[in-house]
Structures are given as structure tokens and as C-alpha cells.
């Protein structure tokens, strides 16, 4: 609507409220991480650090096995992401390209899992990993995550967005299923596949609950678990350091998001491929 806009402030209230509630934790985190102990105690809700200090970051990098956690997190996130994107694309292509009985039913049933509490889902997987002897190893974290319903769903949507005549043209030119997948489908869904890959990576990087159950030894911890150690030791004197860890934990996801914003947004927008 490129039309006149009443300057009615009432309309902006929910907007401002929503934006504030979304942004407040980030601002708080960033500012606290640059505050020293005194500032935190004297003015907890004051958003600005005077003067800003890097002490918290120095403490984190010196007194804390930060890079071990980064390595653990990165290993798990990378492997999970590679597996998930591969299975998502292949399964999605099979869902779109082949006709088989009960296709829609299987697909819809698969979406069920989005709506079940994570706490419910975790128990059976925990049991399975325990039987397989994978508790307290990165593999125990990775194995139940090599396929992802949301990923299949998003990739199926994207593949369905490819105009059918493109696939039919390839078919008429004599291409088989593998040819169509590699020469037509993959190049066309690349932006969305990249977006979903990033999404998977960030999600896995940030994951807290499942690694917490599987990983018991501190040296195997991922960053979100390590971060939680500070919160549990709810002492106040650790707040600044905790927020510095939080900042460092968030840096990679945020950078990935900022650089790949375009891909991510357009995937969510289902803009798909235009012939």
C-alpha cells in the first residue's frame, strides 16, 4: 500500500512492544558482557556499560576451556547438518518425483512430530542411544538427528515450487531421475538448500536439551551446555562472564544469519524458483 498513511500512533504500540520484547534480551546480553562486576550490581537494568570493559572476555578465553567447547559444538553441528541436508533433499525429491501409495498420509504423519513435546520425544531416543552404548559420545548426539521432518518439508516445498514443465522438458530430453535431480533440481533449489543448511547448523549449534542428556562429562560439553554452567552457579559475580560466553556463543549464528539473510528469508517466503 503505497498510499496515504494516517499517523495514528495507536497502531504502532503493538509494533513497539513486540520489537522491544524481541530485542531486549540481545541488548541486555551485549551490554552486560562489557560491564564489570560493580556496574552489574549497581544498575542491573541500565542498558549501557560505563566504561565498557573487556575483562569478561579475557577471563573466558584464559580461564575456561572455551576452544574445546567450540570444537565439540562445531563437530556435532557440522555432522548433523551434512546428514540432515542430504536426507532432506533426497527424501523430498522422492516425495515429489515418485508416485506411491499413501504418500500424502506418510508425509502428513511425519509432520506430527513437530507438535509433540520435545521432552516426550527425547526419552525413546535416549533409551536407544543407551542400548547402543553411545551415551556420552558425540555420536550419541548426532545419530538420532540425521533426518529432519522440517527439513524434508521445506525442501519438498521448494522442489514443488519448480515449474513442472522444467522437469518435463528434462524428461523429454531423455534425462533420468538422477539426471533430473543433479542437473535441474539441485541447481534450482541451491539458494533454499543453502538456507536450510544454515538453519540446520545454527539450530544444532544452539541445541541444549538433547546434548545435555547424552553428554555427561564436561569435556564433551557443547557451548550452550557450558554456558548453562554459569547460570546454574547463580552467583551474580559470574553474570558478566556468563554474558561474555553467551555473546561468543551467539557470534557464529548471528554472523551466518546476517550474511545469508537473503537466502533464509526467501526460503521462508517460499518464493521458490521462477521459470
Amino acid at each position, binding site marked *: 500500500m503505497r498510499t496515504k498513511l494516517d499517523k495514528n500512533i495507536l497502531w504502532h504500540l503493538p509494533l513497539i512492544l513486540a520489537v522491544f520484547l524481541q530485542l531486549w534480551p540481545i541488548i541486555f546480553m551485549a551490554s552486560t558482557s562489557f560491564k564489570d562486576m560493580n556496574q552489574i550490581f549497581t544498575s542491573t537494568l541500565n542498558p549501557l556499560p560505563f566504561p565498557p570493559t573487556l575483562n569478561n572476555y579475557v577471563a573466558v578465553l584464559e580461564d575456561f576451556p572455551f576452544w574445546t567447547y567450540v570444537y565439540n559444538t562445531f563437530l556435532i553441528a557440522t555432522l548433523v547438518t551434512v546428514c540432515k541436508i542430504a536426507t532432506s533433499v533426497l527424501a523430498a525429491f522422492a516425495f515429489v518425483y515418485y508416485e506411491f501409495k499413501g504418500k500424502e498420509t506418510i508425509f502428513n504423519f511425519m509432520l506430527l512430530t513437530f507438535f509433540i513435546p520435545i521432552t516426550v520425544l527425547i526419552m525413546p531416543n535416549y533409551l536407544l542411544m543407551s542400548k547402543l552404548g553411545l551415551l556420552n559420545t558425540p555420536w550419541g548426539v548426532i545419530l538420532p538427528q540425521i533426518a529432519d521432518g522440517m527439513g524434508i518439508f521445506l525442501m519438498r516445498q521448494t522442489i514443488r515450487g519448480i515449474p513442472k514443465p522444467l522437469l518435463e522438458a528434462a524428461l523429454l530430453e531423455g534425462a533420468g531421475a538422477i539426471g533430473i535431480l543433479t542437473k535441474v533440481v539441485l541447481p534450482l533449489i541451491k539458494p533454499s538448500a543453502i538456507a536450510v543448511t544454515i538453519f540446520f547448523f545454527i539450530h544444532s549449534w544452539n541445541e541444549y536439551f538433547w546434548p545435555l542428556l547424552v553428554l555427561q562429562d564436561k569435556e564433551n560439553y557443547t557451548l550452550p551446555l557450558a554456558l548453562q554452567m554459569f547460570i546454574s552457579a547463580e552467583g551474580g559475580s559470574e553474570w558478566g562472564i556468563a554474558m561474555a560466553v553467551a555473546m561468543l556463543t551467539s557470534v557464529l549464528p548471528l554472523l551466518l544469519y546476517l550474511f545469508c539473510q537473503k537466502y533464509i528469508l526467501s526460503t521462508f517466503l517460499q518464493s521458490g524458483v521462477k*521459470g
Partner: protein
Amino acid sequence: MKNIEFKAVKKKYDETTVIQELNFSIKEGERLVLLGPSGCGKTTTLRMIAGLEEISEGQLFMGGAVVNGVAPGKRNIAMVFQNYALFPHLSVWENITFGLKIQKLTEQEMTKRAKEALEILNLTGYENRKPKELSGGQKQRVALCRAIVKQSPYFLLDEPLSNLDAQLRQQARTELVKLHEIYKPTMIYVTHDQVEAMTIAQRIAIMNKGELQQIDTPENIYHRPANTFVASFIGTPPMNLLSAHVRDHWIFIGDACVPLDASWDKVIAGRSRIILGIRPEKCLLAGEKPMVPAEVSYVENLGSQRTLRLTLKNHENVFVSTKDFTQTANSTKGFSFRWEDVSVFDYKTGVNIGYPIKEGGKNE
């Protein structure tokens, strides 16, 4: 023999039959246009030839062999899609050679064919462009190019001009015919545009509601429509269809009584009601003593010609096209026609009942 033959072909989706029962053949090397309103089954018919739709019943022969179960890639078909279906991530050159690579042609042969095709279609110099960098007309030519490099004996086109504007469309029609003359493939062209059909086709197959209505030359489709559907689908404005009573050697239209031409006696014999079909440009405006008196109720000026709507006493309308601007609407008292310009249809079924045996002067 690269001909195509439909033998009792039907197409059903679940319970709905969309193609009733097709029986016709397409000759090797001819330009056949499948014409009809949207939803008439013309695209489904084309897609069955391409193998993109399965045939529910009956047999489809291509080059003498049944192809019902043959995969699209094995039918040796080139097809141009309505939205061109160019691969957006590939350059013009890659689009054109896509199929040739799969066919594992030698690099040399591939380059030769592609260059030749690009030249014919005036696309030399555009090899490295991506589809999105091309205009609509260029995209359409690339799609044609991709089809002709395959040198397939069958050439299918699904409304290939519908995304072009009027000027380009006219030009593309001519190019398309020229292109066909070079390679002489068996060409099946789907369109809903009667002007395209009339100008491109050697034969037109008119479909309606999944049934073939008539398959004949443009000439005959226009002047000797097989039934009232064809008569009213072709022509702008379409053929005037007037209900008429017959008694002895007279026919009654509106409140006019017109002597029946002797040549028609045998054809009409035994019928008391008929439908008389006359093309608007064959109706002659009459100032004095018209065969059928009528009043002018509306005039449209199209620049090069006028369309007058005449209303008979019984409220039937007759459209008359005329280039003659001197006869004003006010002085028009009705219209006349020549018996050799008339088609006659059965009153109930709408089927053409035929023409006098002695060619009475039908133009060409």
C-alpha cells in the same frame, strides 16, 4: 513413416473422462493444429503424444508402433512449452545442448547443430545469456531452438505464442511456418487462438469437451464447418446461425420468406426446420428490398471494417461485417445473401447436412 495415429484413445482422471474417444491420424510431415476452447482436451491430447500423460484406454501409434508404455525420453520428440520451460540456471547454449549431451552426441556434431539452429533463429551472439536476460520473443526463439537441434521427427508445440504481444505473435507465426518448411517434422500445435490456427495449420483439428469436432483444412473448417460448434467457434464475429422453417420451396427466417435455391432442394429435402449458417462478411447490407428485413441495433467500428448487429423481427441477431462505409446504418433495411455462401445444419443435432453436389461457386 513418422505419422501418429489415435485408435480409440481415452483419458480418465479417476472417474472423469476428459478425452472421450479419439480416432484420427496425423500425417508425416504435416502441420496439424489442435484448436479448441480451454478445457477441451487439446493440451491433454498433446501431452499424451509426448508421453507426459498416460493413456487410459486405446492405443497410440507413432511411426507405426504402439507407444502407450514408452517413456517420454524414448519417443524422440521435441516439444515447446507454453512458458518456454527454459532452464533458468543454464545459458542459452547450455539450454540448447542439454538434450544433445544426454544423447551423447560428439562435441563436433553438437556444435554444428547448435550453431545452425541459432543462426536460423537469429540468436547468434546470445549463446552466453541466461534466460532472464532475454526478452519474451527471444526466450520463445530459444525454446524453438532447443526443440529443433534435436532434429526429432515429431515437433510438439503447446501454445508457444501465447506469452507474446500481438505484433511479435504475427511475426512468430510466419517464422514458425518457415521453420517447419526447413525440417518438415510432423508438427502438432496446440492453441486456442483461431487466427494462429488458420494461418499456421495445413489441417486443423477442432476439439470440444474432449471430443474431436472436425479435422480438415482451414479453408473447409471456415467455409464448411462440420457442426454448429465449429461454425460458432471460428470467425470474429462467428457464423450467424439462424433457425429457419422450410415449406415446399420456401424457407422462413424471422418474418421473411425466401425462395429456396434449386440447387439446395435435394440436400434439404424432407426437413421442416433447419439452421442456416451465413458468415458475417457474406451477409450483404441492403437498403431496398432485402431478402431478410431487419433493423440495425448496434454498430461497432473496428477501423478497417464495421460490424453491424441487425435484429430480426423474431429477436434473432445477425452480425454483418462490412468494409463499405458509405451505406449508413440509417438506410439499412435488412440483409441479403447468396445461396452459395450458406451452410445448413440439422435443427436438432447441429450437424452439417452437406452441400449441393454441383459446386455452386464456393470461392476456390
